[in-house]
């Protein structure tokens, strides 16, 4: 049967057809949908781990025990899990293990554009790069086979475009997998990376790479497609698909396995074409290795290391470099005239984070931010977040601010899931080292930005099983924090007084702002209304940056400023604007029993 699947759905299907029995990861765009789809197969145990390293260790344990396993991550999560990935390259495994990294060229939802292909080279493990959904599925199956025959974890690298685009996929069957495993293989010298023993494993890892390079020559998805031999293009991943369209006549070496490289195949191809070009998104990963083979090739002189290389870009740059005749350059369509208003991201109407940023802006505190929707607090009208780097970084940065003895009190913002991921160790560190600062844990009861996945603050798991919810206040208390306040995030006055109390405290203070994300809340209220007789157009409510509060047609006679109006479709009745309005012009609709 042929069905339309996204790359991520196809990877999940591949896990099913590869006989994978254990899968773990931490949500992160563009990888999140893999595990969400894996969870639909009851044959596979799947979980959201608290971070990628934990997921990696857990998957290694499963693979040591004889279960085929998979780990998923977004590109920066690879930095977190790499520590654990690297030991598995030395130990090998009892059953297949694939690690899927979804990179983000173009930075649609990430803090950098790192090229994770280098991790394969650094960690010395094989790397597969699918270009569409069919390959995404096939490479998981082939990756498990490779993993078992070479006794190594295998890395599969997709990009946002392969993860999120859809194409047709032929479905296959799942092999019969054992219900029971065990007993655990006692092979201490293999599975303990103790220096004495690991030292003996290193030559085996190097030897394995040589054998993998031989295998790469025969890997069916490394293939030459001869065309016009005046131009030869070496390409991998989705960029192959773009290049096939833009350079329909050229010869291609399409690489599905990009580490280690098939050197004979590359030499054969290079020898068969007049001009050799590598087209790759982000870094010159292939180009450097091919140049090191002594082969003359161009790449980054033509195609830049930044952003996606979309077909349009390939056409423009290819024409400029003389790879395409001018007349083949397709004329771009008409451009719209004038400056168009952007549709920049905003906190959703009814978002519980709004109060915090409104107050942080009002109090003018320096704020260390973290990864999540609440980054929107850095944008107007709040302008209330001043740093943001990586998962859990906010609390460490706040501690640094405190130790720098800033003349003003500072705060950190971090969401519930991010706190569980990487916020606990730095908070513990703050307590131990007499840190000063306010940590606002913005608990919206979910991992909102990546699509509302569960975390230890929830009472269900990815597989839908009931579980015990962690009480964040209790957890924080156990870390040694003495000043802990828990406040309803929609109560502006209570939030303000709690913030003042925490920032006035001379040590590590934690303010837990609790309020459900509008997408998990089951309590929407009717839209609020503005009494235009009472509204003076002071503009206070606009400082909330709520998309439901718009400028109406009516104006204040003296100032000429436009009065507020509330969009009844967007408003969720969260009540925050009513609380900040100084003239009581905003209220619940008449006759509403609630």
């Amino acid at each position, binding site marked *: 049967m042929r069905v339309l699947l996204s790359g991520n759905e196809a990877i999940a299907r591949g896990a099913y057809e590869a006989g994978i029995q254990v899968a773990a990861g931490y949500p992160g765009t563009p990888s999140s949908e893999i595990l969400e789809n894996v969870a639909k197969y009851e044959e596979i145990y799947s979980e959201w781990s608290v971070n990628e390293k934990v997921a990696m260790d857990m998957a290694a344990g499963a693979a040591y025990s004889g279960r085929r396993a998979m780990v998923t991550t977004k590109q920066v999560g690879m930095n977190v899990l790499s520590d654990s990935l690297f030991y598995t390259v030395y130990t090998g495994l009892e059953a297949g293990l694939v690690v899927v990294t979804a990179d983000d060229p173009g930075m649609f939802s990430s803090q950098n554009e790192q090229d994770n292909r280098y991790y394969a080279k650094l960690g010395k493990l094989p790397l597969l790069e699918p270009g569409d959904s069919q390959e995404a599925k096939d490479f998981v199956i082939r990756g498990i086979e490779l993993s078992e025959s070479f006794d190594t974890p295998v890395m599969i690298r997709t990009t946002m475009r392969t993860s999120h*685009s859809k194409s047709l996929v032929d479905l296959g069957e799942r092999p019969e997998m054992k219900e029971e495993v065990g007993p655990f293989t006692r092979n201490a010298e293999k599975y303990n990376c103790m220096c004495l023993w690991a030292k003996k494993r290193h030559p085996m890892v190097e030897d394995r790479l040589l054998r993998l390079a031989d295998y790469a020559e025969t890997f069916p998805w490394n293939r030459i497609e001869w065309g016009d031999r005046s131009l030869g293009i070496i390409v991998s991943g989705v960029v192959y698909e773009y290049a096939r369209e833009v350079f329909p006549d050229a010869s291609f070496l399409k690489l599905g396995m990009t580490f280690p490289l098939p050197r004979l195949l590359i030499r054969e191809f290079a020898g068969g074409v007049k001009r050799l070009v590598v087209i790759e998104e982000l870094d010159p990963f292939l180009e450097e290795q091919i140049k090191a083979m002594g082969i003359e090739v161009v790449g980054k002189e033509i195609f830049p290391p930044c952003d996606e290389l979309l077909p349009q870009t390939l056409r423009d740059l290819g024409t400029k470099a003389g790879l395409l005749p001018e007349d083949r350059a397709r004329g771009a*369509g008409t451009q719209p005239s004038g400056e168009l208003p952007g549709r920049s*991201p905003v906190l959703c109407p009814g978002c519980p984070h709004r109060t915090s940023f409104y107050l942080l802006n009002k109090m003018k505190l320096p704020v260390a931010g973290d990864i999540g929707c609440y980054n929107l607090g850095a944008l107007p009208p709040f302008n209330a977040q001043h740093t943001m780097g990586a998962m859990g970084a906010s609390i460490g940065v706040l501690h640094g601010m405190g130790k720098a003895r800033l003349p003003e009190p500072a705060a950190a913002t971090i969401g519930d899931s991010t706190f569980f991921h990487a916020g606990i160790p730095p908070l513990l560190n703050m307590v131990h080292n007499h840190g000063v600062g306010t940590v606002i844990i913005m608990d919206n009861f979910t991992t909102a930005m990546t699509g509302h996945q569960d975390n230890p603050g929830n009472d269900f798991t990815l597989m839908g099983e009931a579980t015990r919810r962690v009480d964040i206040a209790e957890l924080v208390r156990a870390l040694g924090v003495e000043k802990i306040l828990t406040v309803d995030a929609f109560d502006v006055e209570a939030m303000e007084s709690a913030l003042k109390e925490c920032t006035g405290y001379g040590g590590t203070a934690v303010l837990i702002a609790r309020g459900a994300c509008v997408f998990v809340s089951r309590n929407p209220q009717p839209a609020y209304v503005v009494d235009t007789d009472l509204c003076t157009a002071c503009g206070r409510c606009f400082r909330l940056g709520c998309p439901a509060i718009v400028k109406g047609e009516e104006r204040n006679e003296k100032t000429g400023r436009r009065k507020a109006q509330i969009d009844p479709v967007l408003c969720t009745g969260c009540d925050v604007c009513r609380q900040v309005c100084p003239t009581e012009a905003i209220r619940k609709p008449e006759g509403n029993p609630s």
Partner: protein
Amino acid sequence: MSGRALNFLIAGVGGQGIVMASDILSEVGARSGYDVKKSDILGLAVRGGSVVSHVRWAERVHAPVLEEGNADYLIGFEWLEVFRRISYVKAGGTIVVNDCRLDPVSVSSGQLPYPDRTEMLSQLERAAGKVYVIPGLETAIELGNSRTLNIVVLGALSKLLDIEAGVWKEVVKERVPARLVALNQKAFERGRSLTG
């Protein structure tokens, strides 16, 4: 394969049902014997951001995204968003636009004016061969559920393509919640009447 290669670009605002519409459109292409690829581009915000979806039908599709000047059909759920993507439409191509204005925060906060509707329409008409302006949202609200907007728009598009209505209806039926099938079939029919 049942016809010539076709490229579609669907533009609108998060929450209007664009991803579902492009999923349905892709599935209709696949069931009509085409190779199909699609790619959605979503902004950071879950609600209210720009959304654009590329859908391609051909005997063999390589890239999941269109180049500018290459869309046979530009389908817009909102004026500003369709205007923003005007460069994608092929000369002689077709534009279907749902007559709807949603002000982004940059407009509601008074930073920039919303472009003039008449001016946008005349530029769309110059760029494309044919422009259909349809009261999609009004129709959906009349039917009693504004969330059927995407099905109304697909109905309008379906009338312009050489694919049997039954194929569309079958896919719509599979994609919407069971209790809303009848309503969506009605929305699809009403949509067809808007361009036919």
